[in-house]
């Protein structure tokens, strides 16, 4: 199984749709331990991405993802902008010039994207951020790929790991981002960024499953 350009375009539209549907949910999570804007920020960013999509939708997959990254960087307005922006710029680098993606391409894109987020935000697992969902997801994808699983199974493993990682942020004390100012009071709340990470990966999976 390979992923072609049309599927990539469908993934981007699905991510935007899922974020729009969950705008209030993400904002509510962020109100509990942050400044209450994560859903608004993500939705603004992905609407910008959709606006910028048509002129690149027939280009190579690298260009399409680079455009997603630039859209998020320019329009999100909060910490998620430079972080997810870097994530998708890294996708774009690995996918540069490609018309379709293999399992190993996608594994490399996820790994490079995560590395970009960690370099930009300096967060490690356990600090109650999006890294808590993304790192286990990237590892689960790689483990499934190494075991010779099909792309779909690899992506399903990644999403399941992201969901577990997201839930595991609940008992943590935040060490990065706005929630960090709350210290111990951040305990008991699910991190908004970890939640949006799971939603984005799940949106991509939905396209693979259809």
């Amino acid at each position, binding site marked *: 199984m390979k992923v072609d350009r049309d599927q990539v375009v469908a993934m981007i539209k699905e991510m935007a749709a899922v974020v729009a549907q969950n705008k209030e949910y993400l904002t509510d999570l962020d109100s509990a331990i942050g*400044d209450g*804007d994560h859903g*608004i*920020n993500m939705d*603004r960013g992905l609407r910008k991405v959709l606006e910028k999509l048509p002129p690149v939708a027939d280009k190579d997959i690298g260009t399409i993802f680079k455009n997603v990254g630039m859209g998020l*960087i*320019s*329009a*999100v*307005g*909060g*910490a998620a*902008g*430079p*972080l997810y*922006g870097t994530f998708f710029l890294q996708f774009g680098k690995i996918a540069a010039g490609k018309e379709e993606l293999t399992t190993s391409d996608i594994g490399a894109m996820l790994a490079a994207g995560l590395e970009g987020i960690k370099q*930009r*935000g300096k967060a490690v697992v356990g600090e109650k951020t999006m890294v808590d969902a993304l790192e286990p997801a990237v590892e689960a994808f790689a483990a499934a790929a190494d075991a010779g699983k099909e792309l779909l199974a690899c992506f399903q493993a990644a999403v399941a790991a992201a969901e577990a990682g997201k839930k595991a942020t609940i008992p943590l004390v935040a060490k990065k*981002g*706005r929630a960090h100012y709350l210290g111990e009071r951040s305990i008991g709340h699910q991190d908004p960024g970890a939640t949006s990470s799971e939603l984005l990966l799940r949106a991509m999976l939905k396209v693979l499953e259809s």
Partner: protein
Amino acid sequence: MVGIVIISHSLKAAEGIKEIAQQMGREVPIVAVGGTTDGDLGTEPLAIKEAIERVGEVDGVLLLVDLGSAVMNTQMAVEMLEDELQRRVVLCNAPILEGAVVAAVESAMGHTLDQVRRAAEGAAQMEKLL
């Protein structure tokens, strides 16, 4: 002379801080930037990049930020600058208001970018309740 860019989640806060700092160095180029394009609180790399470029002819530009994404978005903005300007720009680890005041004073005295940065960062240790 060293120029200063004040970067806050709130344009109002950035402009207010600029006003306070400007009193200490009337001729120092100071630019305030903040908020999102559609008027919400936040920071945007492209707006920050433009603000740095707007400072004009100076020997260096000191960047002061408030918190959170202001740091990451400013770092991104700096990476997007042309090499020549990028070499004359420094992001400093100073409290935004006190740092801006100290930086304006130091810049008006004709100090170098590095001197202005160190003085602004020293503002974190200044006693307020004497």
